């Protein structure tokens, strides 16, 4: 019988294994874990219009479902999905061009740079998930919501004079978590 471990806590390799064994819940987790990533590649790296990006997004996960057995190392899921998304976007743009639609193939160097930025953003998000709830909240409030030390102090009940130091400590933890997971890995 399948282990009852919550799929959201599985690492990519274990998740891929569960998907290969036909676990529908694991497949839904895989899609949920990487949907924003795939969509970001379609929109930001290939600049597909929203509707076309949604079609491409569906194609990517359909192909991923069919070809998952071909992925030798499940821990390389993310670069494998990136490559699959890249090929699917290019196929989509070529098909659009053949059909007479105005489709401009983006510069390969620019796509690489955008992919690198997206990968970094994903790695930062994943590193954020490893932080305590307090650290996540204080970093989110200062850097994403542009809240002041005073506002953060009022909401979290921490003296305003100590907020800057707390943010610095949380950033230090974030850097450690990020460096711990940012080693490059090739798709298998």
């Amino acid at each position, binding site marked *: 019988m399948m282990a009852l471990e919550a799929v959201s806590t599985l690492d990519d390799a274990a998740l891929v294994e569960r998907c290969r064994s036909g676990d529908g819940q694991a497949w839904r987790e895989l899609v949920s874990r990487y949907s924003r990533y795939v969509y970001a590649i379609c929109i930001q790296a290939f600049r597909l219009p929203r509707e076309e990006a949604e079609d491409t997004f569906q194609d990517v996960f359909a192909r991923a479902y069919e070809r998952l057995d071909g992925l030798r190392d499940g821990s390389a899921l993310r670069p494998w999905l990136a490559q699959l998304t890249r090929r699917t976007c290019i196929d989509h743009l070529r098909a659009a061009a053949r059909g007479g639609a105005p489709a401009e193939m983006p510069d390969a160097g620019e796509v690489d740079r955008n992919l690198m930025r997206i990968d970094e953003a994903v790695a930062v998000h994943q590193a954020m998930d490893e932080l305590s709830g307090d650290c996540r909240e204080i970093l989110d409030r*200062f*850097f994403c919501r*542009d809240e*002041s*030390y*005073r506002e953060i102090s009022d909401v979290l009940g921490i003296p*305003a*004079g100590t*907020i*800057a*130091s707390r*943010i*610095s*400590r*949380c*950033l*230090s933890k974030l*850097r450690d978590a990020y460096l711990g997971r940012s080693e490059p890995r090739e798709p298998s």
Partner: protein
Amino acid sequence: MTTLPTDQTLLGDPATGGRAAAIAGAMAAELTRAAARARDWEDGPGAAAQATALVRRMLELGEIGRDAHAEAVRALAGAADPRLAELLAAAAEAPLLICSAAADTALLAATVAEHAEAPVWADAAAAAVLAAGAAAMAAHLVSINLAVGEDDRRALLARDYERTAWEAAARARRAG
């Protein structure tokens, strides 16, 4: 000698007090960032990252404030614009946020000054004083806005931010 070409200005066109406060605050944050990086201490990289965020925040607010100010001035000059009160209130919002960001910059600079050694300490203290000046400029702009009364929440908040900034600047100067 470095001079500015006559067809260029530091503040852009139109030059406004809010934009000047934002640029002064951003300069203070940039100086804080440099001071935070100058010495190897545990919180240095985090302080530098916060300073970078404050530079970005103040430059954006300077732009937003300039647009809001221009709209309010146009409305004041025109015939009974029904949106006047709303536009004046919007014009007070950016200086208030600049004031808040400048107070944060002064607090951050004071923290950096307390961990720095000469001559970097002097730069961090100067950044705190400059940030306090930027907070004072922005607080003044909030207080003179026609939509803001003396006891208005925004005026009180701005004065509070300004006080915080000057206290931080005094702390930074004592740190040497």
